[in-house]
């Protein structure tokens, strides 16, 4: 049963519009299950560039996270077979402290994992039956790895120190056979040499191109840039993803803030982006999205995703997932109801739907740091960090939203 929430802070008309928009939810949500249980002094984190913490292939779900259960931050993966409820866990990282793991789906029930360890970024393939050997991708100090795979191949992007600053490096990979070590085909700096830091990349792999977006600090404040490549070596000139509003002051500061872009493949030719945007500076970060044209050479106008009930409160940890049937969903956490919950919006006929507090990922205790993906049937898969109370131990929870709507209104073309 979906528990809708309403607020009395706006007019009746707005409230009715919100209910009408939200009532057409394309998914029916199952009860959540625990992926990683709470433990005394254990802190679970779903931190990943592009928020790629969950992936699905051939019905198998893979989730990756970091926790400190043995006193050191390490990265783990858990798998759920089709039709089974519980998750089976394996450790990804080695002997050093490790952070910010990511996962992307490969064919045949396999996955490609990435993480940061000992100042470098690493990848390894694997699935429920075991993990292959890890491959170190970076040679200089590196972090914030993200992954994506598709017809154009498997790709990794990360932030790597290049002189005084960090640059986004993109690598094409051969994931290899089950149990083997992935191999690096080639890698290149996307837009360098950097005059300021480039951070937190996101990837989407289309039929014949890969799109990379990142945070760029060259302008004196953070701007989101994106580029695309057909071969993973030559990149288009970077373009600005987040619209630049006129500066409020010509004297103080350099511009508004923006953080943590994530990308999703909408279909063979299009990508969608989501990020947190501080252009309306008094209400904290808002969730904004943009859709690409075919080929992803351009992104369209920026669209605010959250509804008006989230306007005067900060949003955090925005994540995006898509399916070729024009299913496009964005999730995040905010505490508009006095306590952090996981909120969901999807692309509807008239734009973004009203916000839905995901049943099972709301209620007492903070629910934060969501990551979402969709499977081949358009079912939605969500993982997040849950706590019984703000000072209580963390745990990882997962739930599936079964697709119940066969047709969605087409996502409009970008001009």
């Amino acid at each position, binding site marked *: 049963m979906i528990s809708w929430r309403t607020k009395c802070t706006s007019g009746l008309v707005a409230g009715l519009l919100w209910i009408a928009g939200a009532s057409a939810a394309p998914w029916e949500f199952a009860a959540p299950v625990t992926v990683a249980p709470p433990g005394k*002094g254990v*802190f679970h*984190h779903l*931190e990943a560039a592009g928020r790629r913490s969950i992936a699905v292939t051939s019905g198998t779900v893979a989730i990756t996270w970091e926790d*400190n259960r043995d006193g050191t*931050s390490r990265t783990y993966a858990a798998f759920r077979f089709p039709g089974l409820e519980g998750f089976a866990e394996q450790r990804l990282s080695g002997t050093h402290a490790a*952070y910010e793991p990511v996962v992307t789906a490969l064919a045949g029930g396999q996955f490609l994992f990435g993480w*940061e360890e000992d*100042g470098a970024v690493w990848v390894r393939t694997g699935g429920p039956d075991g993990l292959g050997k890890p491959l170190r991708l970076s040679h200089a*100090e*590196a*972090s*914030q790895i993200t992954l994506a795979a598709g017809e154009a191949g498997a790709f990794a992007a990360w*932030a*790597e*120190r290049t002189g005084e600053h*960090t640059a986004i490096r993109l690598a094409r990979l051969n994931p290899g056979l089950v149990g083997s070590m992935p191999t690096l085909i080639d890698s290149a700096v996307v837009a360098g040499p950097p005059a*300021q*830091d480039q*951070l*937190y990349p996101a990837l989407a792999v289309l039929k014949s191109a890969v799109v990379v977006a990142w*945070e760029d*600090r060259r*302008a*004196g*404040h*953070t701007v989101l840039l994106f580029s695309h490549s057909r071969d993973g070596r030559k990149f288009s000139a970077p373009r600005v993803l987040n619209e630049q509003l006129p*500066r*409020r*002051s010509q*004297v*103080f*500061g*350099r*511009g*508004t*803030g*923006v*953080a*943590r872009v994530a990308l999703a493949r909408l279909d063979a030719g299009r990508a969608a982006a989501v990020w947190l945007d*501080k252009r309306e*500076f*008094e*209400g*904290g970060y808002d969730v904004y999205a943009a859709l690409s044209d075919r080929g992803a050479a351009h992104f369209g106008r920026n669209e605010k995703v959250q509804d008006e009930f989230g306007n005067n*409160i*900060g949003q*955090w*940890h925005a994540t995006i997932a898509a399916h070729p049937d024009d299913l496009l969903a964005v999730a995040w956490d905010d*505490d508009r109801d006095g306590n952090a919950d996981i909120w969901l919006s999807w692309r509807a006929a008239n734009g973004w739907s009203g916000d839905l507090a995901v049943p099972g990922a709301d209620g007492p205790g903070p629910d*934060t740091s969501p990551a979402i993906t969709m499977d081949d049937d358009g079912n939605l898969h969500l993982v997040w960090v849950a706590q019984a109370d703000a000072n209580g131990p963390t745990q990882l929870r997962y739930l599936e939203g079964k697709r119940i709507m066969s047709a969605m209104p087409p996502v409009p073309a970008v001009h």
Partner: protein
Amino acid sequence: MTAVRNWLVGCALALGVLSSVAEAEPPDGYPFVSYDAGLAQARQDGRPVFLYLGRYGCGWCDKTNREAFSDRKLHTVYVRHYVLVYVDTESGRRLTLPSGERITERELAARLKVMATPMFAYLQPDGSEIFRVPGIQSAQDFFLYDRFVSGGYYKKESIRDFLAHEVH
């Protein structure tokens, strides 16, 4: 500014913290340090922490830096009374909370529900919060807050009550 940046980078390296993060923007000439280094120093010295939550390119931070932190007397008072900590609310630099949890500066901003920058928080030496104040502040504001903390008023009244009798 360059000296402060170099000092911060040096601290991060000394702590084994990954330094592939953007530079912060604390005001010129102040010995702002990372969260980890600052809380460790505060515990050792028994001094409170002045926590500056800023953002790269933030206009109100820049204005406060130029118009308030340029006050030489403020510099003297704050350097003497506080361990000065700067956090970039969009940064991926890692820090350790008093609970032992490792999170990023960005995540700290989320936990503290930072809606706008700058935000200033005064912490006890153990890291617990005394009070916080968002937005542009003048040197005069900072002197008042210092009296509230250094004078021990916070132990017996709220900042709101303190300002009510101090300002009027």
